[in-house]
């Protein structure tokens, strides 16, 4: 029997994982179903757009700029090993737009937005504010979850687009200011090299990552345990889950868009 214990533990872990996936899927489906069922809380949606989109701009912008600059330096020094320094504009553009832009914005949103949503909703839960919403004839999924998830799904692609542009600008600044590229040539090489599919895939990744980030925040917040410890655990778990799911979704989407 002892020999079967590891197998039993593995089976238990798999069952727990499947149950968790089921719970998240039901939560997501229930929340999404409110998109077509009034009432709609426009003010909460507008507030979420501002909180998730506008107020994330500084952190997204700085992350993208420094990453674009570092990428230009890496490609230049790496490319020098086989006399390919000239490809800096093209690789920075493709690297930022296809991969680093969406992933870094997704991860920054997981850090900034998922944690904030989870902590806010979890605190509301432990202080009975969620119960109060229900007694005031307001569906928490409609009032709290849907506006946040919808706003993140719509606004994170915009943030990704802005992050892509600022990332390329970071590469441009380093390329022109430090590595001696001609500005006009750098820009022309960037613009001519990028294809529409690079940009559309970047924005679609942004929508998926935004959905994941907000959904994980809401899910863990709504299912928080009691007290300060419960809020802390919900916040930590939401960021972990969002980050891992964003990276997993990125792999799947990259496979879907770009595998031969």
């Amino acid at each position, binding site marked *: 029997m002892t020999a079967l214990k590891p197998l039993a533990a593995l089976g238990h872990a798999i069952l727990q994982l499947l149950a968790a996936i089921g719970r998240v899927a039901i939560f997501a489906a229930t929340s999404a179903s409110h998109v077509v069922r009034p*009432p709609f*809380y426009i003010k909460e949606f507008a507030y979420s757009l501002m909180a998730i989109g506008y107020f994330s701009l500084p952190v997204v912008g700085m992350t993208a700029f420094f990453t674009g600059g570092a990428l230009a330096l890496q490609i230049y020094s790496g490319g020098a090993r086989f006399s390919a320094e000239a490809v800096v504009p093209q690789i920075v553009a493709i690297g930022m737009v296809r991969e680093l832009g969406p992933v870094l914005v997704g991860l920054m949103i997981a850090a900034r937005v998922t944690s904030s949503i989870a902590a806010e909703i979890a*605190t*509301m839960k432990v*202080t*009975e*504010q969620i*119960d*109060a919403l*229900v*007694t*005031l*004839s*307001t569906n928490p999924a409609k009032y709290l979850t849907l506006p946040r998830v919808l706003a993140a799904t719509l606004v994170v692609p915009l943030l990704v687009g802005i992050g892509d542009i600022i990332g390329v600008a970071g590469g441009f600044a380093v390329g022109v200011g430090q590595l001696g590229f001609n500005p006009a040539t750098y820009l022309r090489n960037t613009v001519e090299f990028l294809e529409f599919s690079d940009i559309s895939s970047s924005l679609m990744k942004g929508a998926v990552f935004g959905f994941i980030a907000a959904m994980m925040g809401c899910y863990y917040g709504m299912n928080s345990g009691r007290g300060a410890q419960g809020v802390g655990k919900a916040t930590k778990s939401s960021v972990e889950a969002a980050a891992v799911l964003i990276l997993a979704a990125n792999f799947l989407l990259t496979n879907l868009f770009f595998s031969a």
Partner: protein
Amino acid sequence: MIELVDLHKSFGDKVVLDGVNLSIAKGESMVIIGGSGTGKSVLLKCILGLIKPTSGQILLDGQNVERVERDAFLARFGMLFQGGALFDSLPVWQNVAFRLLRGSLKRPRQEARAIAIEKLRRVGLKPDVADLYPAELSGGMQKRVGLARAIAAEPEIIFFDEPTTGLDPIMAGVINELIREIVTEMGATAMTITHDMTSVRAIADKVAMLHGGVIRWTGPVEQMDNSGDPYLDQFIHGRAEGPIEAVR
């Protein structure tokens, strides 16, 4: 009229409600007493549908609450939560007028604000409190705002969950008086859960004691002191010795 019929609720192996039977007549103020962890809050949340009972029936005016339209059902209730449960992100007046700003009871914004200010005045708060945020208020003021929110839509039934917990004796007395006055003037049915005996005597028409998952005793508040029930006697006199085991 609210009627609980053989209500059971378990969390895993832990049985909290083990066949609760209780009737609350229209316009009556029922106070449920019982020690901490005896399931008073669970009972209240079962009635509101915040927790699903394991078995049993909850009837409102003879209708099973599981079969009535949820929004219409909830529109008949107001609730004062133990900690106030005010929404931090909204100013006081929007907390009070929450129900009047959205949903089936929606009113124009200015009218909703005027009603909120009137309800705040009713619970003894000045209009300048209306634009403050809950975090800027003392515990007693938060309880009053919670009370104003509970009565804002003039519900037929009001629930009070530990209304005096965490308040000093004078503020607790003020809240008790307010509850009694408001329930009387609105003609509302009230259900209060508490273990504060001063509240019980100030608020109750009838008292029910919840112990061991069942209603151990119920009757008019005047008969409480002469019930002859050893559990109730121990509880209302706060004795450490008696049939109720105190965890030390």
